[in-house]
């Protein structure tokens, strides 16, 4: 089958799926969310530098866990539906 024929077959077999659109929107939103997670880490770093204290480490860990969870969710969305 020539590539042109493949394209024609794909076009004729393609069906519009609402799930695909939803997934794309979720992925787009997650990209922004990942950016936010990174900004939070930068923010925590700046804050900890401004005010050093005994609670810095837990906060930094929480910020990294937060970013990890966002990335995890991104993977789940990629794999799910």
């Amino acid at each position, binding site marked *: 089958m020539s590539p042109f024929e493949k394209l024609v077959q794909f076009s004729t077999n393609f069906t519009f799926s609402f799930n695909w659109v939803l997934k794309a929107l*979720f992925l787009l939103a997650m990209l922004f969310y990942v950016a*936010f997670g990174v900004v939070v880490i930068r923010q925590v770093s700046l804050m900890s530098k*401004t*005010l050093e204290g005994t*609670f810095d480490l837990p906060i930094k860990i929480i910020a990294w866990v*937060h970013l990890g969870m966002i990335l995890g*969710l991104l993977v789940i969305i990629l794999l799910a539906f």
Partner: protein
Amino acid sequence: MKKAAVFLFLCFLVSLFLCFSVLTVRADCPETDYDCQIAEIQKVIDALKPAHERNKAELAELKTQLASLQKKLDSIAVKLKELEKSIFEREVDLAFQNELLAVKVRSYYIKSQRYSPLLLFLSSSSAQELTRELIFRQQAVNQDRLMIIQIASDLKELEEDKVTYEKSQVSLAQAQKQVDERATFLEGEVEKVESAIVSLTTKQQQLLAQKLASLNLPATLGAGPLVCVDDRERDPGFRPAFAFYTYGIPHRVGMNQYGAYGRAKAGQSYRDILNAYYEGITIEKKPNINIKVQGYGEMPLEQYLLGIYEMPESWPIEAQKAQAVAARSYALAYTDNGAKEICTTQYCQVYKGGNKGGNWEAAVKATEGEVAVHSGQVITAWYASTAGGYTFLSSDVGWSHRPWTKRMRDTSGDVGNFADLQGKAYDNDSPCFYAAQGWRKEYNKSAWLKSEEVADIVNVLLLAKEDPSTQKHLPQVDKPNPDGVDTWDAGRVRQELSSRGITPFNGVSDVSVGWDKGLGRTTAVTVSGDAGTKTFEGPEFKNFFNLRAPANSRCLILRKSDKIKPVKSKVLKFINPMPDIYVAKDKKPTKPKVARPKAIKPKATKTETVAEKMKLRRTTNPLTALAIRPKKVFFETQEKEEKIILLARRHQVTNLRWVLITIVMFFLPWFVTGMFPQLVSSLSFRAVVILTWYLATFSYAFEKFLKWFFNVNIITDERVVDIDFPFILYRDISTTKIDNIQDVSAKTGGFARALFDYGDVHIQTAGEQREFIFEAVPQPDEVIRILNQLVLEEEQEKLEGRVR
């Protein structure tokens, strides 16, 4: 005369031009090099004054000439007026004469035509009659002709006079205008010179004030016990030694509190005391109105007075009564009879609430309602701790003139020398009556200076006078140069002087002071040494001493806080305090003749003192909203030796809103899926949505927590720091020094704030940022107490010269 006036006028203009040309020449003084600018200004003033005097003399001369011209113009105007009147009268006459002339001309013509000699000859009956008739007719014609000539001549003269009059009128108006213009111009020019001198003097005072704004001296006794070190009792360990002293602190206007103490001990009544310190006052009774007291709300004046802490309890009752009347007058005048709020710090009057009791309560009650009144107005009764034997007019220290202030020698007898002053001054019991300010730890914590150090100060003064552009290189060598240029050490200053043909001093052997015993001001300082004898004016010596003296030595403390309004004692301006110069050579400094009544207690470091006084405990909980001396907490701009006294966040209760929102967000999916089970049919999609939701909830809560945790207000032993993160990745750090704090107040209100004891603390400062607000911090009263303690300790440290 007119030419002479114009010539003089031109001379005046040229002199003005030259004068201003000189004045506008300025050295390049950096903005912060106050002494350089001051020296420049002083030079300008010195240059202006003689020129100004010359201008004034020339103006007076020109004025005389202009007056003479004016007189002449007036005389001409009068003559012109007479001429005008005469012309008018003559015009009226001539109107009649014109008619007469017409008649005469007609009659002359008729007579000359009608009565021919031939006809007369024929009609005459006799020769005699003919002769008589001919003579008569000839005379009549001649008379007509003469009259015609006369009238024509008058008419011509009148026309000429009218032309002259009109020309003279125009000339007179022009001359008058010119004279007026010149007089106005001259007045304006002299006014300009006058105002130039005034503005420069003000600027000079501002610059002095700016330079010395950071110095703090306790103004009144409300600021706490006076602490001044008497270095005459300390041996610096070297000879010869020189120390520079000043009498009294700080502004010397109004009632002298230690003077009141001395007068009361000498048997004077409080009325005598008040009349001694305030000019032309009467004591009158005023009703007990309500006044607004900052942080305490509204209360009756007499109740407010009971909580004033401005005089020690042990002092004689008459002194306390004088203080009570002064404080009452001050409060009434300051609040404008209750319209305005009065602060509770030494910037107004120290008020601590409640009733001080004892002698003070007795004094307030004994003088109930009594105030000092001048010309029907309750006076702003300024007072200060120690006048040093002389009080000044408010205008002497740069404040606006108040007729109730006075220049006075505050002694029990005549003063012929310093010993008289020390023995007879009413305030000689004050520990700050006679003191040197500043110290160096390596010389037994004293302000004694070595001979070569005094020589260096004198050399600096000589160099600055010779070449003002060098001033930025001449501040003290042991501190960073404020202008960022290199500071010249003693050797370099000597070298620069030599290169300018001036013999520098290597050592000083004697220093003496000339002073005005009537006014209590230093007039001259004479220094003798290996380079001869030099005499300087008191103020210039003082300025350069304060500029160059090592460590924090200052012989003549000048201070003005220009960041607060000129009220009462805290605002001090440049004055000429009267220094004595004590010289000790090859022997231990002699003991003082006047006993110092108060020993100086050794003082612990500030942090410990605050902690001990307030019985604070160190906080270890990192999530607390009010941490006292928190452990292992540092902020980015913290100095090495700086200690955090207090760290405050918003009260935890203020987090309730976002915590509740988080809880609602947490339960919302359960609620939604319970209510609408078929909303999302796909299990995987539902899982993703719920996971996203919980993650967003967590993000929201975490962000809110970060904002609460890191938005902090910090009080250290040196400053107040406000760290704020208004938006993501946006940071705002503001700081102000403790000695910039002018006023602290707390605002609480509302159910939650009252229940959980939190509120806003407002800190008014003299810094760039006028107000610091600690929002919703727990225990605002405690925060204020700590701040007040720090402010007081900062001032004490400055007094003792222990400021970092």
